[in-house]
């Protein structure tokens, strides 16, 4: 089959997929827990991601939220092909890219880029910024020589850096500028998907807005698709078209941004939203926080049934026995899915229930 006919087949496959760029089906990622020493017996598994499915439409932003340890970053790394997948499937642009070898993955690396959380850790301190941004060109051998330098300077200008600074080292830039360097590097090969792993959580608020606006501009100009991971709910609300809430390796709730933020159905989502700080002091004072008991349980030995039930203010006997399916609840739109036996109803006072549960454990 020639390249052109292959491309034609791919295009037809894409159009039949109602324009989903990335599809994740029942993805599972377990990390083995081994004993120390030479004979390393596997004594358990960290169930970092346990059966997650999601789909990101082309040109849209999917926000992924959840507290530390919920498996957001692991999921992102599985999609980016940085971690081998235990089971399940990742489909990119109609192609199965699950557990491809490094060489077979190379063409997809050009399409999938990442922006990392730590603007200090994600840039090699011993290399000049020009060389860092030119890395994608060097690795994929696309642009060389003076043309490469010109392209690097174009990219720097595009992300709001002074192109004359290409000879400097990362240490000579501020946090926001460094994150722009990371954005320029991710943008170099004109990818289709950019996975943003908490791209602004290490920046202060005024800089966060600048970087978020930059990402929005780039999405508009280049038709980028984002998988946007954050634990800051307001940031996710600002950038996302749809939102997926993860808890302990599972999807708790997913739906369009407005559906999830206005009518959260999973008690965990409701608790997360009630914990987000509000800028208006009057609203903040009148708001009732749902205070959960305890910490996120160990993913080595997750709770039976619904994984949230030990901390849930609405938990009943059924919750500890049966795993709730991710499904549309009564009164919700067709894209708003919740994994809960007893979803939150409108006007329900979860804060009081949580307080009562704390009084009598």
């Amino acid at each position, binding site marked *: 089959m020639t390249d052109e006919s292959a491309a034609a087949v791919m295009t037809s496959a894409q159009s039949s997929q109602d324009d989903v760029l990335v599809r994740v089906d029942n993805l599972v990622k377990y990390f083995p827990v081994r004993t120390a020493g*030479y004979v390393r017996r596997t004594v358990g598994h960290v169930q970092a991601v346990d059966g997650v499915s999601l789909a990101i439409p082309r040109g849209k932003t999917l926000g992924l939220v959840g507290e530390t340890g919920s498996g957001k970053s692991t999921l992102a790394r599985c999609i*980016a*092909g*940085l971690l081998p997948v235990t089971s399940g499937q990742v489909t990119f642009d109609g192609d199965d890219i699950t557990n491809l070898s*490094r060489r077979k*993955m*190379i063409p997809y*690396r*050009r399409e*999938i*880029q*990442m922006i*990392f*959380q*730590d603007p200090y*850790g*994600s*840039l*090699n*301190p*011993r*290399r*000049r910024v020009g060389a860092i941004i030119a*890395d*994608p060109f060097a*690795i*994929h051998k696309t642009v060389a020589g003076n043309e490469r330098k010109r392209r690097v300077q174009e990219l720097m200008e595009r992300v709001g850096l002074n192109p*004359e*600074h*290409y*000879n*400097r*080292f990362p240490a*000579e830039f501020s946090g926001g500028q460094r994150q722009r360097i*990371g954005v320029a*590097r991710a943008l170099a090969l004109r990818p289709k998907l950019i996975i943003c792993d908490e791209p602004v959580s290490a920046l202060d608020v005024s800089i966060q807005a600048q970087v978020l606006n930059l990402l929005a501009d780039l999405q508009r100009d280049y038709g980028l698709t984002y998988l946007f991971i954050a634990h800051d709910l307001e940031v996710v609300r600002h950038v996302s078209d749809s939102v997926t809430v993860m808890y302990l390796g599972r999807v708790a709730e997913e739906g369009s941004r407005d559906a999830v933020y206005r009518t959260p159905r999973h008690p965990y989502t409701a608790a997360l939203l009630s914990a987000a700080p509000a800028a208006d002091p009057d609203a903040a004072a009148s708001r009732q926080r749902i205070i959960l008991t305890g910490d996120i349980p160990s993913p080595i030995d997750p709770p039976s049934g619904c994984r949230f039930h030990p901390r849930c203010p609405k938990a009943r006997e059924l919750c500890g026995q049966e795993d709730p399916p991710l499904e549309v609840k009564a009164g919700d739109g067709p894209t708003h899915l919740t994994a809960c036996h007893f979803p939150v109803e409108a006007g329900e006072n979860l804060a009081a229930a949580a307080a009562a549960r704390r009084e009598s454990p």
Partner: protein
Amino acid sequence: MSLSELEFQAAAVEGAPEQAVEGRSQWQLTWRRLRSDKVAVTAMITIVVMVGLAIAAPAIAALVHHPPNIAYPNTGENAVGNPVGPFTNGFWLGTDDTGRDLMVRIFYGARISLFVGLVTTAVATVAGVAVGLIAGYFGGIVDAVLARFTDAVLAFPYVVLALALAVVLGPSLAVIIGVITFFSWAGISRIVRGQTLSLKEKEYIEAARSLGAGPFRIMFIDILPNLLAPVLVLATLYIPAAVVFEATLSYLGLGIQPPTASWGNILAAAQNFYQVAWWYTVFPALALLITTLAFNLLGDGIRDAMDPTTERLLAARRGRKARARSRKNAAGPDQAPADTAGSASA
């Protein structure tokens, strides 16, 4: 960086906006600090002079008309056949027991010593870095095999093996270089492996992987520049060690063979004449001392001029040495058992 430098940079940026501003690399910063270190600069000059003298040894021999391996029984020895002293009969540093020019022989010896020191260190550094990077980056079974092999080399009684090899294979320059190299790479490899283990977890390595970089590109483009600093310090300290090791082997008669001059075999020959010819022992010993001291001081200077990571690395080693010393003192044979117990509990 001082305020005036910042202002100067700022002015340069404003004054010439179309001119690219080049950030100072770690090496440029290290060089600036090293240049202001008087001891390190003196050591560097000493090394340059020593290397210059070694290279110019044939010219010096021609200048004083004394080839290194020609004995002068008439002018180079006194009436009873002993060496003549410095500045006698045109011998600037005196002669040896067969009446050869000691100064010329010391400079020819410097050729051997510096050649062995630089070649073994260069080969050992390349090998050590390669093994350490591969072991540290790939991990798993590769690391287990390479790291255990490194440990085995480090644990080996290297003087004994060197002597045995020299006896079996016959003493030659190639054997000396081979033996010293074989026992030098392991220390570098271990340091590099440790650094690689920590560096490969950095987010920028993950960034390189997400771009599609292969393992060798990551090892040599992304990791290597971050560990060159400790490796350079270590290499500078391995040169004098190799020089001394070569002198030791030659002194024991298992290294460079007479009549070829080497500091070790000159010192070995001189030990029978220290009562009648002090210069015969003192000058080659001084050459050895000055050279090793200069390399050690330069290594210290580079280390001080480097980043804090290196300082921590070597501070830990100093700490270990200090603890080993205190243990040795505590168990010293000249102390009463009660004292030992007291200092151990303290």
